[in-house]
């Protein structure tokens, strides 16, 4: 089973739309994992049935029992996150600031502080319209540990994929280069980079590719909306050549992507035109590379 991660550095380059089209083309051969847990959108195109769900606990939050607190202030002294403040003579925890390190509880002389495990989201195993399984999640508001939820989703997809003899895991990653992206990349066989010909698109592509290189993962690139700026498209192509990243395809700017999205469909099921032909060709190319 081969693991394909779709990332972009910059948001809004078309990762999810393209990944969902590949999922549609791959049908029963693929298991789908939406690892953009922070702003998961793939379900809007693949209509999962949320068949099974489980709460996700990660990290801790300190809680001060006012009855046992003797106001010594040691907790606030050791907290490096400015999460403990004094208000009307009572020490209170700011849940948004608390990192859950547990240091305060360890130094509290009256054992007034306990750490509660945090429910930071939910993850799901779903059946989708292409006759396969999709693993996805919803991270709670402002939650930390999105990297851990990504790992959970990915590992579950791996396990179910193996059990069902799937050929590919298709992973929709999140924007950026931080913890959720690093988590989605670890152990991947192929990184598909989706970019767009804008100064930001190229800038972010370079940064995310540096990260991919650190992991020694083979990479290919699709330039979306390639005709918006021919000059930057050429610059991206030169960069790909120089870095030996396979240039898979250029997609034209096409509002059919949005039209398909408003109908809850992947582009390849919505229509059949030059654009869908390039997308099908790209999927075939990626499969070939991985055989």
């Amino acid at each position, binding site marked *: 089973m081969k693991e394909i991660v779709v990332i972009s*550095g*910059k*948001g*809004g*380059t078309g990762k*999810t739309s393209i990944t969902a089209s590949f999922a549609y083309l791959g049908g029963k051969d693929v298991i789908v994992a939406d690892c953009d847990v*922070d*702003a998961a*959108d793939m379900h*809007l195109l693949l209509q999962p049935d949320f068949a099974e769900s489980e709460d996700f606990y990660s*990290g*801790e939050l300190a809680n001060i029992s006012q009855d046992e607190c003797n106001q010594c202030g040691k907790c606030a002294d*050791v907290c*490096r*996150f400015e999460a403990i403040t004094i208000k009307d003579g009572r020490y209170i925890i700011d849940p*948004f600031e608390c*990192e*859950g*390190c*547990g*240091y305060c509880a*360890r130094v509290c002389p009256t054992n007034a502080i306990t750490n509660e495990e945090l429910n930071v989201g939910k993850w799901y195993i779903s059946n989708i319209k292409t006759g396969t399984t999709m693993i996805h999640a919803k*991270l709670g*508001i*402002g*939650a*930390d540990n*999105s*990297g851990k939820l990504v790992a959970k989703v990915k590992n579950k997809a791996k396990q179910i994929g193996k059990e069902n003899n799937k050929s590919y895991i298709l992973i929709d990653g*999140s*924007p*950026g*280069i*931080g*913890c959720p*992206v*690093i988590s989605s990349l670890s152990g991947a066989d192929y990184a598909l980079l989706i970019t*767009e*010909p*804008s*100064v*930001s*698109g190229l*800038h*972010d592509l370079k*940064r*995310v590719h540096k*990260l991919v290189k*650190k992991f020694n993962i083979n990479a290919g690139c699709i330039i979306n*909306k390639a005709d*918006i*700026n021919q*000059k*930057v498209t050429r610059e991206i192509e030169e960069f790909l050549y120089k870095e030996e990243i396979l240039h898979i395809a250029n997609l034209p*700017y096409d*509002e059919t992507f*949005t039209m398909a*999205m*408003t109908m*809850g469909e992947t582009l390849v099921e919505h229509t059949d035109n030059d654009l869908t032909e390039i997308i099908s060709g790209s999927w075939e190319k990626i499969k070939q590379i991985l055989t």
Partner: protein
Amino acid sequence: MKIAIASGKGGTGKTTLSTNLAVYLSQKYKVVLIDMDVEEPNSGLFIKAELFKEENKFKMIPEWIKDECTLCGICQEVCNFNAIIQLGTKIMVFPELCHGCYACSELCPTSALPMIPKKMGKLRHYENNNLSFVESRLDIGQEQATQLINQTNKYVDEYFPGEIIKIYDAPPGTSCPVMEVTKDTDYVILVTEPTPFGLHDLKLAVETMKELKKNYGVVINRYGIGNDEVQNYCKEENIPVLAKIPNDRQIAELYSSGELIYQKVPEVEQQLENIGNYILK
């Protein structure tokens, strides 16, 4: 006045709005623009200004002093992040997992784990007349954007005290880095696009703002594409729509070349004026 420009979904136009609004307002006021998307900072591509100051930013991590260590195991026990592990007669520190809480260091009975700085990124500060621009970029491979955002906030607060207009370009999403950027701001502008993805992620962003008890409004970018559902949602929820930036190929092209839009598209300048009037009233 601190204004954050955020969005659930990436690529909806946060940076476009931040840079255009900052430069536009700087014609009249003193403005600081801060790029807080430390993983992928892009505002600098649109801002022309002279480098004024740069500094490396560090996070504190423990360093093991073998000769002082008695292998008591307390460090490993107190670390909630598995960032410090005892393997046989060796203590291993995993800096990328460390949150810098100091528990291992300060609870070590023999002071064998002093905290040392480790570089996580760089802050740059640029100046151009009325406009100051600060950006921080996370080193590649570093996981925790939040600490760098926090230090950037401190730099900006110290360097630009008082009632000056500060515009914060936030990272996408709704998780910890976004909270870190928006929590101390006076107003949050959520940029979205009128598509199902845009709407879905806008709802997440709105939930986040409610949780933080923030004042917020929406700017609809690429207006005209997709459908009316974002507008309907804002109406039902009584969320003010501050501006609508049209879906226009010329705008996409200007953006793609790193150019500011309002100087070439009068309609966008009008929208910026509306936003300025609304938030500065």
